[in-house]
Structures are given as structure tokens and as C-alpha cells.
């Protein structure tokens, strides 16, 4: 059974329909890239998948492991194993990073029928995972994302992903705002999560991220629809000819 199946998905914000019938099927262990120009519906797709309020699905369905998630709140989807890495992670002044991470991990563990991790055990776990991603103790101690640089925020997203071990990860423009070194660290963190149990949907404007996170499939999103699907060479084609060339050819 497919990990993710998007069937003829139409969605709108307010009166404006942004997605006009998206179809996509992804199996576990696969990495799919979604590329598209500004305004093509990339971020809308990530929010509709993750269940953000205000994004209304008017037609079609989203299935995770064969089960429709449309009626589920964002938190239910996340506990089932969906993870969204934000393009712009938000700052939560006054919310302790450790308390936040532990609440998230325990919510997921509870759903899986596992015991909650106590405070001490969690600090050990978080530190060991954080170390591999270059997230220092100082960052762990602060309020969520408060005072973090752009690169630090992205690393903190990947840290959350590593701790939550999602089955479906949606990465929304994870490369935006990263310099070359930061891009390498973040990509290494993402690649470490690749495996037979996890499927990844990598949403990006630029091909350069896909040099680091090499996709199995590349979809071109334009005007709220997938206009072309191919392998990683499609991304190079975009880099060479631009979106206009692809769109017109399609």
C-alpha cells in the first residue's frame, strides 16, 4: 500500500482555488521532489497535507497508508507520522525548547502505544540526536527558535524530524535562507533519515538542494497542477531551461 496517495486534490484559501487537481503516489523509502515557480501552490500543498486551518479541500482526497486524513486535525496527522519542516519556522517566546520537544515526542509515542519518556531520559536523547546535527546545548536550552539564525532554525526543524521519526516527511523549501555550509549540514541530517520506513516530499524552488538530497522522482508543479514528472534529470533540465521551458513543453 502506498505511504501517500494524493488523489485529484483541489484546495482553496478563502475564495481562491490554489490547487486544481493534484495526483501523486509515493511509497515508503522514496524521495519525491516537488519543484515549481513562485505562486505555483508549493506551500499551499504542504499546508493542505499537514492540515492547517484555513485551507479547504474542495475535491479529492489525501490518504496515508490507505486511510484518508482529510477529517483529521493537524496534530492527529502528525501523531500518525506526518512531519512538516517549515519554510519559516516560527519563534515561540516563553516556550521552553526541551518542554516543547518532549511534548511532541511523547504525543507521538503515546499514539504508538509506547511509554512516555521522562525528563531526564529525554534530555539525554535530545542531546545525542542534537549533537549529530550541530545543535548545541545552548540552543536546546533556549525558547523554541527564539534568537536562532536562519540556519539554526532549519537545523532545529531537522532535529525535530530526527526525534519524531516520521513515516512521511514534507520539507517545505528547507534550503531557503541557507548558505552552502548550512545546506550541507541540513541535507546530511535529512539523508540520515532516509530509509525504508520513511518517505520524503521535498518541496523546493531551486535545483541545488537536490544535489544534496537526491530524489527518486521529480514533479513540476505549475498553476496548482503537476505538469510533468521525471527522475532527477528533470531537475537539471529546470536549472538549464527554467520553469517556462518545461511548462511550455508540457
Amino acid at each position, binding site marked *: 500500500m502506498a505511504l501517500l496517495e494524493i488523489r485529484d486534490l483541489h484546495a482553496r484559501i478563502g475564495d481562491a482555488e490554489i490547487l486544481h487537481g493534484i495526483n501523486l503516489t509515493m511509497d515508503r523509502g522514496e524521495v519525491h521532489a516537488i519543484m515549481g515557480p513562485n505562486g505555483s501552490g508549493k506551500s499551499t500543498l504542504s499546508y493542505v497535507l*499537514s*492540515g*492547517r*486551518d*484555513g485551507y479547504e479541500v474542495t475535491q479529492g482526497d489525501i490518504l496515508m497508508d490507505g486511510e484518508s486524513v482529510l477529517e483529521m*486535525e*493537524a*496534530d492527529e496527522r*502528525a*501523531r500518525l507520522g506526518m*512531519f*512538516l519542516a*517549515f519554510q519559516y*519556522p*516560527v519563534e*515561540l*517566546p*516563553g*516556550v521552553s525548547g526541551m*518542554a*516543547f520537544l518532549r*511534548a*511532541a515526542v511523547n*504525543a*507521538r509515542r503515546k*499514539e504508538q502505544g509506547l511509554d512516555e519518556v521522562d525528563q531526564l531520559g529525554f534530555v539525554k536523547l535530545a542531546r545525542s540526536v542534537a549533537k549529530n546535527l550541530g545543535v548545541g546545548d545552548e540552543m536546546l536550552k533556549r*525558547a523554541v527558535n527564539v534568537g536562532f539564525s536562519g540556519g539554526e532554525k532549519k537545523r532545529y526543524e531537522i532535529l*525535530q524530524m530526527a526525534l*519524531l521519526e516520521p513515516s512521511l516527511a514534507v520539507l517545505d523549501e528547507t534550503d531557503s535562507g541557507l548558505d552552502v555550509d548550512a545546506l550541507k549540514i541540513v541535507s546530511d541530517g535529512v539523508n540520515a533519515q532516509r530509509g525504508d520506513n520513511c518517505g520524503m516530499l521535498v518541496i523546493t524552488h531551486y535545483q541545488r538542494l537536490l544535489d544534496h538530497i537526491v530524489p527518486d522522482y521529480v514533479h513540476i508543479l505549475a498553476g496548482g497542477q503537476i505538469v510533468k514528472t521525471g527522475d532527477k534529470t528533470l531537475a537539471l533540465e529546470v536549472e538549464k531551461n527554467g520553469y517556462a521551458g518545461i511548462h511550455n513543453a508540457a
Partner: protein
Amino acid sequence: MQVSTMQPELAHPDIDQLAGDAHSAVAQTGWPSSKHEAWKFTPLDKSGFDSLAPASRPADTLSTAQTQSLTFKDGYLVSAGTMDKAISLRQLGRDDVTLLNWLKLLPKDHHLSYLSLGGLGEAVLLEVEASENEIPPLTLHFTGEQASASAHPVVLVQMADGARLTLIEEHVGSNALSAPVLMADVGASASLHVAKYQDQARSTSHLGLSVLKLGEQAKVNGFTLSKGSKLARMESHVEFMADDAELVLSAIYLGASGQHHDITTVVQHEVPNCQSNQVIRGVLNDDAHGVFQGKVRVAPDAQKTDGQQMSRALLLSRDAVADAKPELEIFADDVVCAHGATVGELDETLLFYLKSRGIPKAQAQAMLIKAFLGDALEQIDDDAIASFMNQIIDDWAEQNNDALVMGNS
């Protein structure tokens, strides 16, 4: 010491005069309506207070307690614990000239002063000496059972130069109206912490007044949590009497269905080089109404004053209302003063971020409420008090989430 309990008929003629003046002032003007500037958001004219009489002295004889605490019932001291040797306790009757001198320090032409003077039974004076040792916190427990009467406890705190004290005020019980007065004269280099917790029955009203005078290099840290009653106004008047004193006033109100919370402060910088910092946070659910009024006055001589004031209210319901009236009156030219007031709702983006991590909506909302109140909670610098207040807020957020989740989804 002779106390008034033995001779209730005796009263100092000047105190009688003050009480009589208070009665006639209220008889003349009535309870303040919304036309009265200081009461425009919290009018009392329709509160039905006219039908109340001050509670009679309870039959209880004064008992002792193991802890360092005083218990007041219906406005009268009924239990006194063993005090640290640096603290001495005296009950002052209406015939006492010491009490008269304190009463003269009450705000003039003020309804809360009238209320206290009009219902005055007795007062308790705490005299605190400087001490080498750390004195454990002193708890003042106010309760009452006379549901159709008003309680008027008066606590006076005389802090000697260099003295240190932590006071915890707990206001519970079911007196129809509680009008407690706390007055503190904080000597040079003395340090006073006051943490107030108001959780009276929902049928009651609370009109509390604190009057604080700060000496040279004195430090006062006051924190208030208002959660109970249907109508609560907690008012503080602070006056800097000598240079280099520091004040932190923080307050949190938590309002739910049918409640009205009012935090009012008057801070008077009369002398140079003093600091005041006020941090007010309120969370309002259902149709609750929250009010913050804060006046900072900086006299012409009060150069180098640093006066800060920030109030924020968080509305969890479209029916909730928050009013803020910050006022700065600055007559000195070399000062750093700022004030601000905001009213907002829970940020949907923040809520979505937490939910996208699998954190259930109710828990996510509680985390954000807690974070919102953090700035005020951080001002408490006593771990035990902070953890007590945190627990109350956690419980409140949890209770008010059930309603929220149903209301929003």
C-alpha cells in the same frame, strides 16, 4: 498589650471622625459609577453593596498555628502562628493612636479608603527588624463565611532599615465583599516581597488596596494573581520617599465566565534615581472583562527616574473584553519612562506549529497561554511562590481549554 477586643466601645475620637467622614462621603456621593474617571471600567453603583454591613467579629478565640502564618476570618484575626524573632505582632484597636497615624496615610478622597475606614474593626501591625538570618515567608490567610457581610481586614507592616520579609497573601472564602488593606512602610535598604493570590468564591467581590512607601534603597517586589470572585479590583499605591529605591509590580488576572478583574496601580516618583517596573498580563475566556489602569507620576524633582509599564491581555473568546488605561504624568526632564498596552488573540501560526508536531490542541493552547504569562511570572524571584503560582495557572489553562476546544472547532 491591651487590645480593642476587650473594650469594643472605645474608639479614638480622630478615628471615629475619619470613619464618620467616610460614611458621609459615601452617603453623599454613593458608590462610584462609570462616570467616575477612576472607576469608569469598574463601576460599583450597581453592585448591591448598599445592602451589606461589615461582618461581626467571629466568636472564635485567637488560636495558635505551627506555621508562620496569620489567619483572618470575616476580617478579624483568629489564628496566629509562631513568628520569627525578627517579627513582632500587635493588634491595634480603634482606640489606638498608632493606628490613627497609619490611617492618615490612606489615599485621600478615595473610595477604597472610605470602604476600609467605614468598616474598620481592628488592625494588625507587624514590626519587622533587620535579621542576619533568612526569615521564612509569612502567610496571611484571609477567609470568611458570613455570606451577606463585608470583611475589612487591615494589615500594617513596619519594616525597619535593612529588614527583609516575604509575605504571601491568600484571599479565599465567601464574604459577599472583601476589602482588605495592606500598608507597608519599607525602611532604608529594606526588602519586601508580597505575593497575593485571590481565589474567593465566584459569588463574591474583592476590592483590595495596597499602600506602599519606599525608603532609600528599599526594594519591593509585588506579584498578584487574581482568579476568583465575580468582581475583583486589586489596587496598589506606591510612593517613593527617598532616592535609589526599586519597585517591581507584576500581576496576572485569569478571567472566565461572568468575571470582572481590575488591576489598578498608582506609582508616584517623588524623588530622584528610583526605578519602577510594572508587568501586567491577563487572559480572558468566555465573556470575562479585564481592566488595567496604571498611573505613573514623576515629580519635577524626580530626575533619573526609570519607570516602565507594560500590560498585555490575551482574549480566548470573541465575547471577552479588555480595557487598558496607562497614564504617564512626567514633570521631570531627565527620565526614562515607557508604557504600552496590547490586546490580542492566540496566534494561529504558533498554534499550528505546535499542532504540526503532534501536540494536541488543548495542550498546545495551554503552552501558549503559559508562555504569554511568562514575562509576569518571571518577576517572582522566590522559587516556592513561583511554582505555586505556576500550578494554579496550569490548572486554570487546563480547565479553560475544554471550553476553548469545543468553541473553536
